[in-house]
């Protein structure tokens, strides 16, 4: 029993060490890629694959988040005669929490899965070894462009999710539940600050980096065969999802502390 626990502990510590080294190498390689013009086409290609092609799915996600929030919250607010404040509730939830988190979860599924599958297949077919055998650092060539593309474009995608979330909430509130349009926007404008939008967008940098690094690591370390690649994809999504939630919690605490330091506490309604 002790032997099994010990062996597993050693294995987990070893895995954590390998992941830590991978993250460090990725940070160094990404920093270098930022100042190497030769790396820009690679980053650009990944931006297209990761960012541009994710726009429709992210927009759909954002729109439904706003609409569902509207449907669920309307009755509660209407019972207190506060239905005109529906926009505040929807918009602050969308821009601060649900927009970034659900957009990131969607990206973890769409982009993270693709990254793990692609790099995992390259790993089992010795393409990563081929990159190394030709004197090229695979982290610099394969990982850094993907991480940079995810890092830079996740915040942009979150803005799209926010925008569609706000429009979705507006559609439900004003078109479906006939709330006065002027009141809806007026209360929204007074309740949602630039800070809330900025917090959501900043979260995107962290979520994007986490999704890309975890997915690339799982691809680089996946076991042989179709089962190995499939398992790596599953592990990458689960690890990304948990990381997004953990990061969201940590960032919420940090940003709240920062906000409370500089501005007084305010009420939503």
């Amino acid at each position: 029993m002790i032997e099994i626990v010990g062996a597993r502990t050693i294995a987990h510590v070893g895995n954590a060490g390998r992941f830590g080294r991978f993250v460090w190498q990725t940070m160094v390689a990404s920093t270098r890629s930022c100042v190497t013009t030769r790396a820009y086409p690679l980053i650009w290609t990944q931006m297209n694959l990761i960012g541009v092609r994710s726009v429709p799915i992210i927009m759909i996600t954002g729109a439904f988040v706003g609409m569902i929030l509207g449907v669920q919250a309307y009755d509660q607010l209407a019972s207190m005669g506060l239905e005109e404040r529906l926009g505040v509730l929807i918009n602050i939830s969308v821009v601060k929490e649900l927009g970034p988190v659900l957009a990131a979860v969607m990206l973890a599924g769409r982009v993270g899965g693709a990254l793990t599958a692609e790099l995992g297949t390259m790993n089992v077919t010795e393409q990563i070894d081929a990159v190394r055998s030709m004197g090229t650092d695979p982290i610099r060539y394969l990982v850094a462009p993907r991480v940079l593309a995810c890092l830079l474009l996740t915040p942009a995608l979150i803005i799209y999710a926010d925008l569609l979330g706000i429009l979705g909430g507006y559609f439900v509130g004003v078109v479906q539940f006939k709330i006065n349009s002027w009141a809806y926007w007026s209360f929204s404008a007074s309740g949602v600050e630039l800070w809330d939008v900025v917090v959501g967008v900043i979260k995107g940098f962290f979520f994007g980096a986490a999704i890309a690094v975890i997915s690339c690591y799982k691809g680089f370390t996946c076991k042989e065969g179709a089962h190995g690649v499939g398992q790596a994809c599953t592990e990458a999504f689960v690890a990304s999802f948990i990381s997004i939630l953990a990061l969201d919690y940590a960032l919420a605490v940090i940003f709240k502390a920062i906000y409370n330091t500089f501005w007084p506490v305010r009420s939503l309604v």
Partner: protein
Amino acid sequence: MMVDKDKRKVKKDGKRSGKSVSDRNGIIVLKNLTKKFSENVVLDGISLTIEKGKTTVVIGPSGCGKTVLVKHLIMLLRPSSGEVYFKRRRIDNLDEKELNRVRTRFGFLFQGGALFDSLSVAENITFPIRQHFEIEDWSQVEELVKTKLAMVGLEGFQSFYPANLSGGQRKRVALARAIALNPEVVLYDEPTTGLDPIRADVINEIILKLQRELAVTSVVVTHDMTSAYKIADRIIMLHHGKIIADGNDEHIRNHPHPVVQQFINGQVNEDDLAVLRASGTIFQAQFLPRDFEE
């Protein structure tokens, strides 16, 4: 006076009958190389000198560590213990950045070709060039691609993608990529595996042609004895992580070790036969239609 025993075994025509040459003649030298994966010892104290300009073929049954051995020559795998030298410089203790410079002097043909799926044939071949040189004149690069493809008999395939190529064509493109930087050493991992005899012989001829025209040092991992006899200046056989035979084709053909004879003649050994006999006949192991009749 000490006399190098190995030197006395070198034949007049330059071909050796057995044992390794001295380190001075070697472009790659392995000293007491051991590789373990967990508790599994794959290479067990291998000492070997690869001669410059010659073709050394490593044979052995599947899983005996041939690929692991060849990957150690450019440090795609790090040894558990032992030393690896390239041109008298120790490389097993170099960091990845320094190793990348050393690796540009090698070409590696992987078993499945390991071509990049997302790149065309031309882009695959120019990959190492684009990574290591600032290209100003693309017409020169196009000319180089044309030349390399002509060397492997695939003129006009520049715009094809790996998915559109046959297994043999992929290996030839991979070979063109491996020689793109005019390497001093080319490592081949099972170059003829999975190919029909004619395609396999095409690969053999290309390996010989490269050695003749570019004077490269070749290390070939294979279990194809036809190929080994055709291209080898020296054949090494691995078994249970150790070298059990080392010499030219004649030496290997007449080697007294029973495992060597079984391998080169493709014979199953008595122990395996005993297991097969004990497991019953195929007829007994099969269900017949009458087994399902009431």
